[in-house]
């Protein structure tokens, strides 16, 4: 019931906003902000539910949709899902608040954001491929429209590119799952994972596609690659990230917050929830290949960020870099080594990194939005300078987020990165050793940005800027709290997912 209402509330809000003719822009934004508080509350309520000791679920709902086809709308929340739900509700709220603050969009815009939020809830809770995929694809439409209609001058092109690439990836994923459906007769994630754990998936595939003459190993590998493609585009993993910088830079800032804070997390979630449990048999074979891609993502993201002059593009590449760590950790966790603590570290680190990056990146983007608002749209590095003298509060809060992003201990970014490196180093040492360079470069491009934007003599163009208004302070305060608290007390987040991590490890048969 709780879950059902969580899934439907954003859609209801979208319907209200969509249907309320004549609602003014600012009223619509305010209404949407208030409405978006509801999912946050509901997420908190769901979090306070008792965990079912058998299934480890906080809440679930199921309805048989097409029983003949074996398709059921199964949604369930465990600790990991819950963390993503919380992130979704928080970042959506944040994006709506940011829209209200930056005065972007109106009725339709807010409705689209709410639709997006609802679909993301679906993605993070669905336990069956069909509803999951429906939601996954449905996120595309609002995000496409949001970028296309409210974006910058290059938005149509960027949005189209985003749409096509993601859709292309999804097609592969759909094909992969259709193959699984043909072979195993189910698309339920849990059933598939159980089949995989019992080594039944491979023979079934081989039996189904006997005409091709390929081995089950090869076929499952192909399916895994197909699924990975779909996820990799969203994440994004090199070389499927081409849509990202333009889309991030052209989208209106709140939408960028959603893109980086939530849409990319769909990829992480998919890697953890789908790729890892369903394909444990073939992943170790693919791991070196995927690991190369992940490390390249990390390094190229960081190096490319060095050459950017547009603040949003810098942040876009930094997102590539940060999500590369997630990809790296998941791939490492797929490697066939039985160091339970390293696996646990990699998986926990991935989730933590996803959550924290969502918060941090959207905070930084919001700050950039504020700067853009003050500068009248300019946002290249040379448009600013010496801001710390003029707007110290904005600079210190954004600086805090930036330092969290480059993994300063005591802030939320560090713990995730520590765990990821811990796990990856124990499982695939060379990857960690190379990726450390990425960590270093992150500091380089972020500090370069800080130096050019915040430090140095005050740019006369910024000499009249107002510092954060009270409203902006109150908007940023919770975000900053969400950066500080997990940094000092990571257990707050980890305790939600530890049981799930153990469950996943047991499923993957990784023994102590």
């Amino acid at each position, binding site marked *: 019931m709780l879950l059902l209402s969580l899934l439907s509330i954003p859609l209801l809000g979208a319907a209200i906003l969509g249907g309320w003719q004549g609602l003014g822009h600012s009223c619509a934004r305010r209404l949407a902000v208030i409405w978006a508080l509801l999912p946050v509350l509901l997420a908190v309520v769901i979090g306070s539910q008792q965990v079912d000791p058998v299934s480890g679920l906080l809440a679930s709902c199921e309805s048989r949709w097409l029983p003949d086809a074996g398709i059921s709308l199964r949604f369930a929340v465990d600790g990991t899902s819950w963390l993503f739900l919380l992130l979704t509700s928080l970042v959506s709220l944040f994006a709506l608040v940011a829209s209200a603050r930056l005065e972007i969009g109106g009725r339709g815009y807010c409705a689209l954001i709410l639709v997006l939020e609802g679909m993301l809830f679906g993605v993070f809770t669905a336990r069956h491929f069909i509803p999951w995929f429906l939601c996954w694809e449905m996120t595309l439409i609002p995000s496409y429209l949001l970028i296309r209609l409210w974006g910058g001058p290059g938005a149509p092109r960027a949005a189209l590119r985003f749409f096509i690439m993601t859709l292309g990836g999804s097609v592969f994923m759909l094909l992969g799952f259709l193959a699984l459906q043909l072979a195993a007769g189910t698309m339920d994630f849990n059933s598939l994972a159980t089949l995989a754990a019992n080594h039944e998936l491979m023979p079934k595939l081989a039996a189904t596609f006997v005409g091709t003459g390929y081995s089950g190993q090869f076929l499952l590998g192909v399916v895994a690659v197909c699924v990975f493609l779909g996820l990799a585009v969203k994440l994004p993993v090199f070389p499927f990230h*081409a849509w990202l910088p333009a889309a991030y830079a052209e989208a209106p800032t709140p939408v960028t917050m959603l893109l980086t804070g939530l849409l990319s997390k769909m990829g992480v979630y998919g890697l953890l929830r789908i790729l890892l449990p369903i394909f444990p048999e073939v992943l170790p074979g693919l791991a070196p290949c995927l690991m190369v891609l992940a490390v390249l993502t990390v390094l190229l993201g960081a190096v490319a960020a060095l050459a950017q002059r547009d603040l949003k593009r810098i942040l876009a590449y930094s997102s590539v870099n940060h999500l590369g760590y997630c990809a790296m950790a998941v791939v490492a966790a797929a490697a066939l080594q039985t160091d339970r603590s390293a696996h646990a570290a990699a998986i926990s680190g991935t989730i933590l990194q996803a959550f924290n990056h969502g918060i941090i990146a959207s905070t930084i983007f919001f700050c950039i939005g504020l700067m853009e608002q003050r500068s009248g749209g300019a946002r290249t590095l040379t448009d600013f300078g010496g801001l710390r003298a003029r707007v110290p509060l904005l600079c210190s809060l954004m600086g805090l987020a930036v330092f969290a992003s480059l993994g300063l201990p005591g802030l939320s970014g560090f713990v995730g990165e520590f765990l990821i490196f811990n796990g990856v180093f124990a499982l695939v040492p060379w990857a960690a050793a190379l990726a*450390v360079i990425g960590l270093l470069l992150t500091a380089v491009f972020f500090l370069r940005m800080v130096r050019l934007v915040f430090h*140095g003599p005050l740019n006369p163009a910024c000499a009249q800027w107002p510092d954060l208004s009270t409203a902006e302070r109150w908007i940023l305060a919770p975000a900053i709290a969400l950066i500080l608290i997990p940094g000092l007390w990571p257990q707050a987040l980890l305790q939600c997912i530890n049981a799930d991590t153990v469950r996943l490890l047991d499923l993957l048969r990784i023994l102590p």
Partner: protein
Amino acid sequence: MADALSPYLPTLLWLVPLLPLLAGGITAFMPNRMGRPASWLAIGALLVSCVIAVAGLACSLTPVHEHAAPTPPVYTWFSFGDVALQVGLVLDPLSAAMGAMVTFVALWIFIYSTGYMKHELRFGRFFCFLSLFSGAMLLVVYSNSLLLLFMAWELVGLASYLLIGYYFEKPSAAAAAQKAFITTRVGDMAFFLGMIWLYGQSHTLLFFDHGRGLLETDVLGSLAGITTVGGLTVSAAAALLLLVGAMGKSGQVPLHTWLPDAMEGPTPVSALIHAATMVAAGVFLVARTHPIFMNSGITGLPLSATAWIGGITALYAACVALGQNDIKRILAYSTVSQLGFMMVALGTGGVAAAMFHLIAHAFFKALLFLSAGSVIHGCHDEQDIRRMGGLAKAMPKTFFAYAIGMMALAGFPFVFSGFWSKEAVLHQAETWPGGHGPFLLAATAALLTAFYMTRQALLVFFGKPRSPGVSHPHESPPVMLVPLFVLAAGAMLLALVGTPAWPWFEEWLTGESAVFNIWALAKPEALKLIGLSLVLVTTGVTASWLVYRNPSSDSRAPDPLEIKLGGVWKFLGDGMRFDATYDRCIIAPLAALARVVDGIERQWFVPLMALTEGLIKMVGRWTGNADEKGLNDGFNQVCSGLQGSANSASASQSGRPQAYLRAIGLGASVLLILYFWLIS
């Protein structure tokens, strides 16, 4: 007091780092105009920390378990999966001595800053950063976990970044801050790798954990038993990585370039962070993890690497210091050189010597920086020693303090701590079985130290004022002078606890009780080194006096050494062109790489995408046309037919509310009349 406190110390110990951190956190929220209260809060917090740290020192003076590893309580910070990660604080002689030194020196530097930074706009912010730094530094010192140490280590780096960039409006300061952070981060990344390597193999990051800690025999043995890349044992590899981290923080060649630039920060910052404490954190890290260095297999590579790097750094920095003209940069290079001395001591196995030199150095170098600050303050922000001169008369108290610091650094005999600590280091190096290289390097460096310090003193305090700016210097206020005297007293009194006659400090660190034996001074090897030190100092001072006794009265005249050495002097002045080399070999290629990657991103991916787009659009247009022509037109015709027939039925409705009301009223009246007609 110590005994009474000792049961509570494990808990109270948390306060030592937390109080300054808390003060930093609170002052961060104070507006600029509340600068004074912010400074009081910072000083107050640090004072309490200092009291506790000194109490801790007092407690550890009386070793309860001799030769027993400490058993501090550990706390679970977080757990992932079913693994818990633990942290804690430890109070052993090493951390107790270091902690007491840090709090004490920092306290006086805080007090000094209230005078020195008086006219700054962001006065409160300065103390916020200072507090943040002190807290983090104390966490480094007391940490019982490599992870906690690393976290504090990074925070220290952040504080250093903020403080170097305190005058962020100056592009040079902003650049120096960035350089410091990134250069040290290079080392930090090695540290990070070393740490996770150690964790991956031992599954613990605690130093002392009831026999299961990293620095305890079981784990040390198991680590030394695993061989990895290049034939090194895990502990050797990790130790080397940790050493790189320490090099970054402690400004060892080749990661030293940030330290002279860091002098862009305010002088108290240079005194506290870039002389006394933070740069010593690297030395402290090696001292802390010394058992890993010691037990790294038979090669002993980490230790000899430490010794050689230290020796090279010591000599290199001493040479470069010869060619500097900025009063603070001379001191900065001297710091690098002295840190090299400490590394030599560590590499040659003398944790005690290194720590003694560290603490002594903290006192006299802080003293020197503060005196230099006083000089700069008095000369209206003039930093070039060629433009100073004759300040001894105008600023006698500063001169007095400076002289003590300078003599301690140069190693004037007997009453100055520097003499004895340097003697201890040389003693260690000389008796090292690995060779005489580090010893010779260090001894030469000692000679040069005496030379350049004398040069500096002569140019600054003697002769005639060489520029109008410094012709009317003024003495600093008491709030700046008192810390000078306190530190001067410390720089001298510390000599008492480290002489060979009563090597109390060393014995205490190693957990033995010292015996006073004046005749230890007369032992041949002691005499030999004392003699050597004396010779080195005297030579250096005399040579310098000969060269600089009559400085030219023109501030633009070339340096006497420049005349003699020519291009070499210029080379030294540029820090042996490390920066330029880095620019050419690392930064420029990196930028080029970034441009190439960006180019690929833009040039290669974009057309590919555009092609796909075009194809898809074409298909879309074709199907769209089919829809438009085939389906929609037919539908439209049906609709328009329907619409035409519906227009005639609506004429009877006038749309006026009152017309409707009247109709209702008439109807109701009719009904009423009917009703009455019916009932009556």
